[in-house]
């Protein structure tokens, strides 16, 4: 077993510090929003986790392409790590959004294009994990996974586009497709700083988690091989 790399430990510490700072900024540095009050503070993390979700799925799609080109196992590990992280963060994104939407839109859920797309995206990547579960041969699992993760990533923008079109023509819901139409606000400089800082923080959270998950994947591989050796 390889020892935990020193750099990873430093990264852990650094990320935790950033995270604490970011929480402090959200609660104490950023001013209270005049209309929405404290609930607006969820925005800083809401966008940041959404950003991590998109980043993960993008990373997974790129890893999928690289896998098909090179057939190197590390890219498969990379894709699965990214998808798992993406699922968790997209879920957090939906949950934080709901918490904000309850007082502001007066409902936990609405079929707004962004919400719809996030949900379908989540389902696509759940399907990805189920596809992997159904295949025993690791090489084939990696190959099919790579194909699906590429297809999934291509369909996400089309889904967003179709859901938006759906609303613009739909007669009942008017105006929600302009970004932040209901519950819009202008950010003060302090808000912008807090927002950018939390994006920065969550990018580090993403890198840190990816590294841990990749390491876990490699270790799991080794365990698998050792088990095979024992059974022979």
């Amino acid at each position, binding site marked *: 077993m390889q020892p935990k790399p020193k750099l990873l430990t430093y990264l852990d510490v650094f990320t935790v510090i950033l995270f604490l700072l970011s929480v402090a900024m959200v609660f104490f540095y950023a001013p209270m929003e005049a209309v929405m009050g404290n609930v607006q503070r969820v925005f800083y993390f809401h966008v940041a986790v959404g950003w991590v979700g998109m980043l993960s799925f993008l990373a997974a799609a790129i890893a999928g392409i690289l896998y098909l080109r090179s057939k190197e196992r590390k890219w498969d590990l990379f894709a699965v790590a990214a998808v798992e992280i993406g699922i968790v963060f997209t879920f957090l994104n939906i949950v934080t959004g709901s918490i904000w939407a309850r007082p502001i839109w007066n409902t936990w859920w609405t079929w707004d294009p962004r919400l719809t797309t996030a949900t379908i995206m989540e389902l696509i990547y759940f*399907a990805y994990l189920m596809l992997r579960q*159904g*295949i025993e041969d690791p090489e*084939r699992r990696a190959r*099919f996974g790579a194909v*699906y993760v590429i*297809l999934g990533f291509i*369909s996400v923008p089309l889904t967003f586009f*179709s859901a938006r*079109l759906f609303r613009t023509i739909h007669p009942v819901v008017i105006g929600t497709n302009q970004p932040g139409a209901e519950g819009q606000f202008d950010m003060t400089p302090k808000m912008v700083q807090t927002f950018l800082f939390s994006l920065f923080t969550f990018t580090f959270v993403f890198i840190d988690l990816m590294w841990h998950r990749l390491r876990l994947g490699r270790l799991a591989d080794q365990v698998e091989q050792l088990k095979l050796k024992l059974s022979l």
Partner: protein
Amino acid sequence: MNFLRATFAVIAKDLAGELRSRELLSAMFVFALLVILIFNFALELDVKTRNTVTAGVLWVTFTFAGSLGLNRSLAIEKDRGCMDGLLLAPVDRSAIYFGKMFGNLVFMLLVEAIVLPIYSLLYNTDLFQIGFLGVVFLGSLGYVAVGTLLATMTVQTRTRDVLLPILLFPLTIPVLIASVKASMGFLQGLEIEAIRPWLNLLIVYDTVFIAVAFMVFDFVVEE
């Protein structure tokens, strides 16, 4: 030339096989009728609701029947070892993809060609408009383009039949939304300006996904 011949050979093989057994078409057809029947009770398809839900009911029926057909069409290849035979043929592998895809498209269109008049008869709705039929074609094309690729994958997995809809439905949401909206537009007699964005979306989806499937199909059948 060779490519086209190989593609047509695969389509001809599928059609000939189907002509003799009639397993797939009859299953898809009966299934489609049952779905419509269930909708009849679930939605109370009276004259007023019919106008708004016809497009939705038809597309749900087509996609369900379609996934049944896709599963079956690729499962036959796998179970009887035909896939290996096809792969041994000295032709470009994407010819096999296009052959299977157009074969599936033909089956889906045939089922639709039977279901549409029946629906039209049962519910006294006029479905025979060129625009609407065009949407049916474009939507089915996009659906089988992705479906054939995914079914080729799922028949090689442990949970095959269960897995196909789970993989296929979230990916084909754009096709479904666009097809339903465009069909509804044509059936309600909206002007073309309101429908065009949906048609564009369908064409974009079809083009993008046929191209991508063409590029990745080799990886799906590789042994």
